[in-house]
């Protein structure tokens, strides 16, 4: 699904884009690091996903309820609300509890890993141990 090409070729881009956008799988990325948001936005859009960005825990929770994404990528060290509290709130709310959550963080403490998995995280990835490609593979596997 290459949106850029369609933009050049098609006169009815607006229509095609909207149609495609509604079909795209939505990923909510709750991460305060702008550079990572930008990189993931570029890569996931290329891969045919729609990425919604939240830069703190509070707006992440709000967007999760409003947008009902297919997957949430969640950092733990976040402004306003800590990632583990976000995860707890997501899993308590009937509207969001079924959404798979990948915790994507640099926090390596075993307590945090255990707590995240207990709360219902689908998987826990320590950023430093993975390449972007490997993270993408995990995302695609869950969304299939």
């Amino acid at each position: 699904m290459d949106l850029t090409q369609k933009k050049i070729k098609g006169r009815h881009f607006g229509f095609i884009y909207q149609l495609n956008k509604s079909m795209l799988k939505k990923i909510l990325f709750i991460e305060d690091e702008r550079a990572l948001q930008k990189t993931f936005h570029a890569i996931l859009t290329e891969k045919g996903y729609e990425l919604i960005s939240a830069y703190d825990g509070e707006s992440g929770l709000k967007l999760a309820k409003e947008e009902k994404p297919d997957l949430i990528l969640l950092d733990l060290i976040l402004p306003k609300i800590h990632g583990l509290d976000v995860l707890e709130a997501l899993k308590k709310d009937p509207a969001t509890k079924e959404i798979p959550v990948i915790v994507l963080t640099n926090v390596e403490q075993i307590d945090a890993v255990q707590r995240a998995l207990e709360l219902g995280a689908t998987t826990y990835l320590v950023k430093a141990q993975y390449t972007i490609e490997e993270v993408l593979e995990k995302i695609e596997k869950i969304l299939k």
Partner: protein
Amino acid sequence: MPQILFKECKKYKVPLWQCPQFLFFIIGFLIVFGNLALYFLGSKFIQDPLILLFVISLFTIILLTINYFIVHFLEKTLDLSILKSQFLNIISHHLNSPLTNIKWILEYLISKDFSVNEKEEYFLALKDNLERIRDMLGKFNLASQIDLTLKKLKLQKVSISEITQKNLQKIQLPFSVEVKTEIEPNLPEILTDPSFLDFVIFTLLDNAFRYTQDRVEIKIAKKRGKIYFEVKDNGIGIEEKEKKYIFERFYRGKEATLKWPFGIGLGLYLSKIFIQKLGGKIGFNSKKDKGSTFWFYLPIK
């Protein structure tokens, strides 16, 4: 009583028998029993009650002193061990974050062709992350060689308002903040170390902008023959129980960590050392959810 004891011991994360407070308690009991034993034993051999009292008192003082030193030493050792693990946590998290960002951005940059404009944005992000590492290592370096740094004190006449203005320009505002500056005109230059003063002013301003809601007020004036600097924000404020730790090495408030996870808890610690070395005084007033005012006084000459 046992709850308080367990709570105190929990923070050290060691078995109960290694916990200083618990040991203090146990040794205290032993001293009481020791005294009783000494009394019964002593009363058989020593007839004069005054001498007996003197022997028991001496015995108690010696044991209490030994007890104090053992517990104090153990407490110090455990505090150091907590500090060490906090330090390692900070290092690993704070280095890991920017390094992973750099790694992932580079992986993406290598993966395909970008236009010069597109590349520029990613390069700026790389630069930001590298600066975060450099800034952090710089502060660690300052803190680890604080005695050496303080020996390098070089006094010269400087204008505090100029240093403040320069630092205000350095600060990148993440969102819109109303800034009010109230600088008394014709302030005298002060004889001080410009690099120390620069560090302190940057730290206080950076914190104020980092933790504020939407307003920062800066005031510089001459008060009681000294230069007074104050920066006030209307942000998260500091909890009452956290106030005594604010200037401690590696300490970060809970709310502050949530709002800005990348601080390392060295800025205020170093600021206090620098201001004291320059012959001044630093402090703050704060109320949770209302904001904080950090201030310092410096002598003019």
